[in-house]
């Protein structure tokens, strides 16, 4: 019932020559009850897309379908959705109870029913003792929970989250992340969650949509997106530090990067110019390795250590155990990469080969 379908959705601001297109023909099918995270850098159109689903932005072209109903022309309140905003957007002059009850009051839900729903939401979110407080008397985390409570009491088909954790400190963010997952598990309501934080995306998503510059780069489970990034953008965006991308010429099992020929453990998918991607955590320091890395700098992160260096003239980073005896800057060490950890991309289109 709460399935969402986006069909060729486009968004253009302005008209005529000054028009700015921000969303280019987005297609996605989200089954009922799934938790979808839309992730991308600032300005990629992810919030705009969410706001189009909410009905806060007009849809320039295409169709948005919620629960089998095209909602393009419906007011936000008629779409059977609830939204949690980044800055919570609680009504400052209303008590916590009234904040949660306001939408139901307008919808003319009977008082007794409102009471039941608000109390239930308050119980789920542990807001019981705070119902008479004003938002300004609450901490950031509590406000966040009230904002979620306001969404829950509406019993919508779809929850929309617009970067709801960005205003919380790191510890609270991790905790709230867990609570949101728990909540989704309990309520099973289709959720669209927008964030620019890849950790949030990876941990919360059942499936994630990676967006860049108004287009969808990849849709998939966190595992798929991490293990098989569909484009060089996804490869560079998901994972920290980002995947190493080496420009070079492939010829059988030889790959030439800036004059330095690297021996590949398996043949490249095709000959000619290619991009080779290797995640820093998937490259090992190993005397049996075939790639000579000139070490330039090291960073100690505690459990692990980052080694920055050069393969030929290309920058290359790798992540090693913190307990290993590290190489020194200026050393040349051998790097070993196994075939399953090599990602090949077309340098022209950025698509996976």
């Amino acid at each position, binding site marked *: 019932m709460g399935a969402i379908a986006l069909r060729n959705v486009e968004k253009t601001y302005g008209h005529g020559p000054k028009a700015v297109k921000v969303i280019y023909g987005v297609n996605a099918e989200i089954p009922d009850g799934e938790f979808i995270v839309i992730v991308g850098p600032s300005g990629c159109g992810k919030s705009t897309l969410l706001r189009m689903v*909410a009905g806060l932005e007009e849809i320039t072209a295409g169709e948005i379908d919620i629960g089998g109903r095209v909602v393009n022309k419906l007011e*936000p*309140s008629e779409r059977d959705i609830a*939204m949690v*905003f980044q800055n919570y*957007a609680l009504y*400052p002059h209303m008590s916590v109870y009234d904040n949660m009850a*306001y939408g139901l009051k*307008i919808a003319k839900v009977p008082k007794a029913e409102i009471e039941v729903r608000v109390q239930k939401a308050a119980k789920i979110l542990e807001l019981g003792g705070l119902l008479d407080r*004003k938002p300004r008397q609450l901490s950031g985390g509590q406000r966040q929970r009230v904002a979620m409570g306001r969404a829950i009491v509406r019993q919508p088909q779809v929850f929309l989250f617009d970067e709801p954790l960005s205003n919380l400190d790191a510890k609270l963010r991790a905790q709230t992340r867990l609570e949101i997952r728990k909540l989704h598990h309990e309520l099973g309501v289709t959720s669209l969650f927008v964030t620019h934080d890849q950790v949030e995306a990876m941990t919360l998503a059942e499936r994630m949509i990676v967006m860049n510059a108004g287009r969808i780069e990849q849709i998939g489970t966190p595992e798929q997106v991490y293990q098989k990034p569909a484009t060089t953008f996804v490869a560079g965006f998901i994972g920290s530090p980002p995947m190493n991308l080496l420009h070079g010429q492939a010829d059988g099992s030889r790959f030439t990067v800036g004059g330095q020929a690297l021996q590949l453990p398996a043949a490249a998918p095709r000959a000619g110019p290619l991009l080779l991607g290797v995640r820093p955590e998937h490259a090992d320091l190993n005397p049996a390795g075939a790639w000579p890395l000139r070490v330039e700098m090291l960073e100690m992160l505690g459990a692990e250590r980052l080694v920055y260096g050069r393969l030929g003239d290309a920058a290359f980073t790798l992540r090693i155990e913190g307990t290993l005896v590290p190489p020194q800057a200026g050393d040349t060490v051998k790097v070993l990469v196994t075939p399953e950890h090599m990602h090949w991309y077309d340098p022209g289109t950025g698509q996976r080969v």
Partner: protein
Amino acid sequence: MVERRPLATALSHLVLVLGVLIIAFPIYLTFIASTHTAREIAQQAPMSLLPGDNIAQSYNLALFGGQTDNGARTPPVAPMLWISLVSALVISIGKIAISLLSAFAVVYFRFPLRNLVFWMIFVTLMLPVEVRILPTYKVVSDLGMLNTYAGLTVPLIASATATFLFRQFFLTVPDELVEAARIDGAGPMRFFWDVLLPLSRTSIAALFVIQFIYGWNQYLWPLLVTTTEDMAPIVMGIKRMISGGGDAAIDWNVVMATAILAMLPPAVVVVLMQRWFVKGLVDTEK
């Protein structure tokens, strides 16, 4: 400012005390004069600075009118107070209502020429009542509104200042609040009543005080649009009392009692609303 300099402290206190004296002394003098008889005031020069025993009679005479010591008839001030009160209330409440609505329209609705409309309102800031007083008089007179409450108040209700103030306030209300209200299903007027108005409480209180005093102190405009004595507000009444005859013929105790009466309502409004100001400053809601 946590410096401890006894001399500076003493000096600043001295300046403050002097300032208070300069402002308070004339009011004290007015009050003292209203407690003496007209004859005492006329004969003793300088006047005694201690209260006399004529207070009840002076205020009785001022409020309800009657025969004075000089043998003249003095008109009752009570109806004038009523007229001033009604005018000031209508002006301040009307101004607030109209400005709230026009600011709401200018900030939250996209209609053609929206900016032009706003700037037209804004430009009228440059045209105070005095500048447009003759054309306004002509309009009011042609509409047969001379000597009416409508004539006294309606032309003073439109206010660019208040519209501008509310516009600036509305612009600081986060957009997400509007969006949250839309998702909750609140229409524009519902949003206005349930969210915007409660948030504007403190601005409304501030504006009410300013506009009440503005309305109460109107002099030039009532002078033009009222020709009969029964529609004169109190500020005009005071002027009328001291306009006839020489110094000896004026009942200064009644005049001063009237002046004190005229000062009281704005003072009451300020004192009562001051609590709201403080409250507004303490809970910065937004």
